[in-house]
Structures are given as C-alpha cells and as structure tokens.
C-alpha cells in the first residue's frame, strides 16, 4: 500500500469549503514561523551587530556613537578576555572529553542483555532532566568542605573543591560531566544498537580480538552519531553559564559567557558586550564547521 507524502484536502472538509488551498494552508503554518524567526532571531542578531560597532550603553540616554572596530580591537587586546578564552577552552575540552568517555563507556556496558535494562537506562537519564540551577545548588552542597558528602566519602578531610582556584574549574566540569554524560550515553546507545550483528559474527569467525573489533567495527560505525553528540556538547559547554556562575566565583572559572553577562548586564557596556558576543558566535560557528566537515568525512567512509 502506498501513502501520499502530502495528505490531500478532502473536498467535503470545512477548509475546502472556505476555499483554503493546500498552498494557503502551508503559508498559514510557515509564515508565522518565519515571522517569529525574523522578529526574535534575525532582527536582534543584526541589531546587535550594529551595536557592536558603537559605544552604546543601555543604561544611559546618550546616543550610540559609531566607533568602528574599536570594541573588537580593545577586546582582543584585553589580557583578561584572553584569559577567559583559555578558561573556556580548558573547560570545553575537559568537560566534553569526560562526557564522551563516561557516556560512551556506560553505553557500551548497557549495550547487552541485562535485567532491568530499560529501568536502568531511564534512571541514568535523570541528571540531564534536572534544571541547571538546581544541579548547581546541590553540587555546591556536595562539594562543601565542612559537611559535603564528597569529601566525606572520599576521605578528603576539608579539601576545598570550589575555593581552591586550581580545582574550581575541574569541579564545575565534573558536575557538567555528571549532568550531561547521559546525553552522550543515549545517543551512543542508539548508534550501538544500529551496528549490524553480522559484522560482529564475522569478526568472531575471523578470531578478531575484542580491541580490534572495537576499533574497527564499533567505533567507526558509532562515530557519526557520537560526533553529533560531541557537536551539541561542545556548543553547550562553550556557552556554559549557570553551573559555573552558581557553583563558584573564582576568576579561574570565569568562562566567557559569565564575563559577557557581567559586561552586558552589570556594567551595561552594551556595545562592547555585543562585540564580545559576536566574537563568541564566530568561534562557535568555526568550531562547529570543523566538526561538521569531519562528520561528513566520517559518514562517507
């Protein structure tokens, strides 16, 4: 039996009686969406691009003066901003790598017949269903040096996870790994279950070792979907805000988006913060592009 991709309008229907053609129904659905996109996404994007070339401050009545590339020049010459970039890069690498290792590892463990598999998978997904702010607040308690359960369980005494400038960023990354590994796990599971069984059977007949099987069969076949998970997580980690903001206020954890927030909404340097937001956008787009190129290459194989 074949079905049409587009459901034809029933000539007896109310819509047909009112003379609504397929085209107008389509427009009815699409035009509001496009309008919405233009008003809430594209217009602010262009408007803030204009502001990034001005000295505009939203907190004053002074008009915006065009100052060319000065905001960009000053930002890229500011050692504190570069430091924010380094912190963000460190955070992205640690947190995404951790999520891939943990998430993929758990997926491998779950990709077999075990009792209560569905229940276990669902329970493992719980962290990513929680709100960022809630996760931040309760991990702050878990990390507490005086009464936190982490120090108690690991026997670390009064180790200062969040007050120690060198440790704080990793503490935030650990929280992020805890929260988002399930996401990587979920996608990896989907990828793993799609690997044809006969490939493993063939490998077994050829007496391939388990490492060989993993690197030659499992990983290449799961790679495309794993890449998608990595792209998502990298973009998210790059613009992370809530967790780092709630957990600690160390200068060593001031990732770019926190700096951006302070610049835009505490210091009201609207023009300059628009420029910083654009710099961030360009970096994210560039990183994503590299990934997507790589993803396409992986898919071709």
């Amino acid at each position, binding site marked *: 039996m074949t079905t049409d991709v587009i459901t034809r309008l029933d000539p007896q229907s109310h819509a047909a009686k009112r003379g609504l053609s397929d085209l107008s129904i389509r427009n009815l659905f699409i035009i509001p969406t496009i309008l919405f996109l233009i008003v809430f996404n594209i217009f602010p994007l262009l408007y803030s691009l204009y502001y990034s070339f001005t000295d505009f401050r939203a*907190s*004053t009545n002074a008009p915006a003066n065009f100052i060319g590339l000065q905001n960009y020049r000053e930002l890229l010459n500011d050692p504190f901003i570069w430091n924010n970039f380094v912190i963000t890069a460190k955070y992205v690498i640690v947190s995404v790598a951790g999520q891939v290792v943990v998430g993929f590892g758990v997926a491998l463990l779950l990709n077999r017949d075990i009792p209560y598999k569905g229940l276990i998978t669902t329970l493992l997904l719980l962290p990513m269903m929680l709100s960022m702010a809630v996760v931040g607040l309760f991990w702050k308690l878990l990390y507490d040096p*005086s009464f936190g359960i982490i120090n108690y369980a690991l026997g670390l005494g009064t180790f200062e*996870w969040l*007050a120690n400038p060198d440790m704080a960023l990793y503490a935030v990354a650990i929280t992020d790994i805890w929260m988002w590994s399930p996401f990587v796990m979920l996608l990896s599971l989907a990828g793993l279950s799609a690997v044809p069984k006969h490939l493993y059977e063939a490998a077994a007949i050829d007496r391939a070792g388990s490492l060989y099987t993993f690197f030659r069969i499992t990983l290449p076949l799961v790679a495309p979907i794993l890449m998608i998970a990595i792209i998502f997580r990298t973009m998210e980690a790059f613009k992370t805000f809530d967790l780092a903001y709630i957990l600690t206020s*160390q*200068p*060593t954890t001031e990732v770019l988006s926190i700096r951006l927030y302070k610049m835009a909404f505490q*210091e009201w340097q609207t023009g300059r913060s628009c420029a910083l937001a654009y710099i961030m956008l360009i970096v994210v787009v560039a990183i994503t592009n590299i990934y997507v190129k790589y993803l396409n290459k992986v898919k071709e194989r």
Partner: protein
Amino acid sequence: MRRKIAGIVAGIGLTLASGTSALAQELTIFWAEWDPANYLQELVNEYEAETGVRVTVETTPWSDFQTKAFTEFNARGDAYDLVVGDSQWLGAGSTGGHYVDLTDFFKEHNLGEVMAPATVKYYAEYPGNSGKYWAIPLEGDAVGWSYRTDWFEDPKEMEAFKAKYGYDLAPPKDWKQLRDIAEFFHRPDEKRYGVAIYTDNSYDALVMGVENAIFSFGGELGNYETYEVEGYINSDKAVAALEAYKELYQFTPPGWAKTFFVENNQAITEGLAAMSMNYFAFFPALLNEATNPHAKNTGFFANPAGPDGDQFAALGGQGISIVSYSQNKEEAMKFLEWFIRDDVQKRWAELGGYTCHAKTLESEEFRNATPYNEAFYQTMFKVKDFWAVPEFAELLQQINQRIYPYIVGGEGTAKEALDALAVDWTETFKKYDRLQ
C-alpha cells in the same frame, strides 16, 4: 453590528477607567530581598491604613537586584514607582534620567538637616557637593562586626591569650588586635575558625570588606573630586590595608571563597567563627534565638581603627528614589512626604529599619534599643563609600579582577595588584572623560 461595536468600546472604556483608578491607589517599591524590606512592608501597611493607598514592596535576591532594576530602567518601564537603590547607583540613576530630581523636595523639607549628614552625602546627592538630590535616605547601613562573647569571656582563653599576646582578650580596638584574635581562635582541628570576612567577587561584597581595611588604615580609593587614583588606591596605606585583609583570609573557615552576608551570619549561627564582619542590617537575625542558637552569646563592635588611629567603615544602605517612568509620580511624592515625618521615622526604627533620621538616631531610646544600635549610631558618622559614578560597575569589576586573585588565590603582591588597579581605573576614568 454597530450596537455590538458600541458595546465593546464601552466595555473597553470602562475597563480602562476602572484600571487607571485602581492604579492610582497603588504604589510599588522595588528593593532587594532581605529583612529590612519586610520591615518596610510592615511600615507601608500603616500608610495604607491611613490613606487607603496600597503600597507593595517587591523584592528580588541581592545578586539579581542591580541587574533587574536597571533592566527595568533601561526599558523605561513603569513597573516600579519607587526604588530603594544602592548608593553607588546615584550616578547612573541621575545621569541616565531614571530618577526624579528631588532637589526641591529636599530643600522644602530641609532634609539636609533632618537626615544624618553622611547619609545625605552618600545616599542622596550626586554629583558630590552639587546640591542636587535624587533620593531620600531610607535605610542607613554600614559594615560592623559580631563576635562570640562566650569565647572571648572564657577565663581559660583569656589567660592563654594574655600569655601569648601580652594584652587582654577583648573586642579589638585596632586591626592588629583583630588579626591577633583571629589567629588565636583559628583552630581547624576543633572546627573553630578565627574570622569570617567577605570574599564574594561578583558584585561589591569583597570590595566592601576591603574598604573597611583601606579606610581605617587611612587610605582612599581616589580623589572623588578630580578622579585621580594614582597615589591613592596604591598608596602605602592602601597596600598595608590590603595585606591586612589577606592576612585575615587565612583565618577563615574552609571554603571561604565566595562569601557575603548569608555566609558571614552563618559563621556565627553555626558556631564556626569567633568574629564575623557584616552589615548592621543583618544583626537582628543574630539576636533572634530562633535563627541563632548562640544569640545570648553574640556581641557586636564597630569596625576597628587602623594603625594610625583612623577609624572608618564601608557604607551600605540605600535611599529611596522615584522612578521617572512611573505613572504615579504624584502619589509617590505624597508617600515620601509621609515617610519623612518624625513619627513615621520613629516607627520605622521600631520596626527594625535603620533610620537615617538624625533626631531618631540621636535619641537615647534608639541607641539603647538593641546591643548594636550604639555601634551603628557611632559608625554612621564615620562612613565612606565606593565611587558613585555611572560606570561604577566597571570599576567594581576591575577592582575584583585585581584583588581577588591576590586575596584568595595568593597571586602576586598587594602592591602589584593595586598598582595594576590604579592603571585600570585611570584608563576607565579617561574613557569617560573624567580625567585628561
């Protein structure tokens, strides 16, 4: 059809008419979420009983207060009729056109004398010495100290202290003693720590704490008339003060790296620290046995003097301003007239508000009302504040960026941090054409 339209128009008209009349009977005051805001709500309930005008005190957590208020101002929003704004907002509020000019109101009611002079200078006037007023001092506040009287008065401790330091254990008279006492009581093995200080660098918490040291050491943030900072913020006195503050940091409880008023009160209520810095506004909670199991053993002292005998404290507190985008400016003005009445100010103090009303402050009744009112009264005559220029938040960010890594991270020296800060601030003031 026409009748239908007429009906709808009449309906809308009626709704609008009743809507505006209802609005005229309501005022919204915006403030941060803390006990004094609850006291203010109690006070304004009495205004409603008197006049029928309903006043609501709307609050938001401190961390969000500045952002939320200015987002509303920048959008020219009329959600708030009055705002109890931080002293350093005056510059941004007045030059940005967000606050209604209250100069005439001030002069008409002679508020320059009715309110304590320091509060008028810091909560109401902008620019400094201009004779232009933008707020009515509402909540006076400054940083003071609480301490554990039972630890201080324990004969064994007193004896041990005297043997070690050569003088009697008592509330510190200067920063040297403050340091000694903090060191003396700092016993991580017993889960007892010397002192709780502000370290949160997200807004003005850490800066307030450090200001206490800088001002009492005889240092200044800069010249508030000429905006010169070189030689002020990095003077020897300021450097010594920053070093003293860093020294205190080593005697704080573990994990004391993002702390403000909540944590500092907890240091006392949880029995963690011997002494704790905090705004006077948070002291009522320390005397309440429901919130502090050590309430009976909690005492208070004013910020101690520096090595040369200078004694100042960092100013907190706020004035109340009328938002220029409010639809109810006249009604708000009437409210302010009520608020500055002698009997209302007295009532405000009774409810727990820290009045700035000179007559009430000076009265024996006020000064003896609580164990900390006397310290508050004395402190309010020796307070100093941060810059109140519109770009204050940038200045705050810069000072946080420089001093936090030194105090908490132990990076570099106090001199390096403050020299770098002097360069940052000079650049910022040049950017805004305050310096050549």
